[in-house]
């Protein structure tokens, strides 16, 4: 009963805020305050064709660094929680191996997933997409390998080396801009180049590639942690 009353109160708040939203933020009107500035000065200041990339990595680059840290903390948390877990005493039921089409088919599709993920995060400043999307696409490729070949694991040491290098690249580029060139963190010190070419927008593509590697290795690590018990125990063939 108390739960239903609580839910009723919340529902009232939600309906009230819906009405307030209709009044305060009319749908489809131009309500930009900072957005206008970003749109006007984007080409001159950053040289990236995709304004969302410019906002994420340049104007708000420091927030993105913090957010990558949150991602790292979550991955580490999952690893720690599964590490302290004692081994399941229950007898594991028999494992069924995937069929022929899944095995051979995913072996052929996996290289294309890697190539497509790289395409997404290399072109992050020209087309939609970027490090976050490309990284999670590559992590899905590793998930596919786990599904098709139970019993094989990715190399965790290589994964953490990639992760560390990507993080160092991101922070190092930011500090380099802070200490040598202008006096702001993540200062864009490389030449801007020509709009819509792949070598443009200064350091933004490099940072997005680093973020792509970092996100890919974090998510691959999470998938590895979560599937470990189900996969590592082997099975019969």
């Amino acid at each position, binding site marked *: 009963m108390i739960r239903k009353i609580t839910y009723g109160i919340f529902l009232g708040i939600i309906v009230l805020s819906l009405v307030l939203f209709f009044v305060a933020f009319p749908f489809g009107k131009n309500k930009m305050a900072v957005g206008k500035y970003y749109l006007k000065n984007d080409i001159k200041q950053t040289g990236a064709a995709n304004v969302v990339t410019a906002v994420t990595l340049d104007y708000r680059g420091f927030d993105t660094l913090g957010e990558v840290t949150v991602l790292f903390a979550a991955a580490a948390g999952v690893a720690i929680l599964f590490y302290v877990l004692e081994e399941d005493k229950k007898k594991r*039921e*028999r*494992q*069924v*191996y*995937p069929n022929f089409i*899944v095995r051979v088919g995913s072996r052929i*599709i996996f290289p*294309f*997933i890697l190539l*497509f993920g790289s395409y*997404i995060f290399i072109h992050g400043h020209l*087309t*939609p*997409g970027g490090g976050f*999307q490309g990284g999670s*696409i590559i992590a*899905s490729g590793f*998930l*596919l390998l786990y*599904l098709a070949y*139970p019993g094989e694991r990715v190399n965790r040491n290589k994964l953490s080396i990639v992760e560390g290098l990507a993080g160092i690249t991101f922070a190092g580029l930011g500090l380099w801009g802070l200490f040598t060139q202008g006096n702001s963190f993540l200062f864009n010190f490389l030449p801007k180049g020509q709009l819509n070419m792949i070598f443009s927008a200064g350091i933004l593509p490099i940072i997005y590639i680093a973020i792509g590697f970092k996100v890919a290795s974090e998510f691959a690590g999470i998938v590895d942690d979560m*599937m470990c018990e*189900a*996969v590592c125990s082997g099975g019969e063939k």
Partner: protein
Amino acid sequence: MSILNWIYLIIVSVGIILAVVRMIAGPDLTNRVIGLDVLTTITIALFVFFAMIFQRYIYIDVALVYGLLAFIGVLVIARFIERGF
């Protein structure tokens, strides 16, 4: 021109409704998963169609992501049903 696009959209919308009906009514899990599969394929076609409507070439990239990744979701569930993993 616009009327032709509208007719296309209406035919495809009926497909979406039927797929959702199969997801609601499916007697067991595998039938629901087929509903998801059909819904995904229809959505890939719709992504490319709306890229045409909005006249932006770059929107097709989103359809590429679904075209390459959608089958992994179905594969996960199929392996679960088989007691695989």
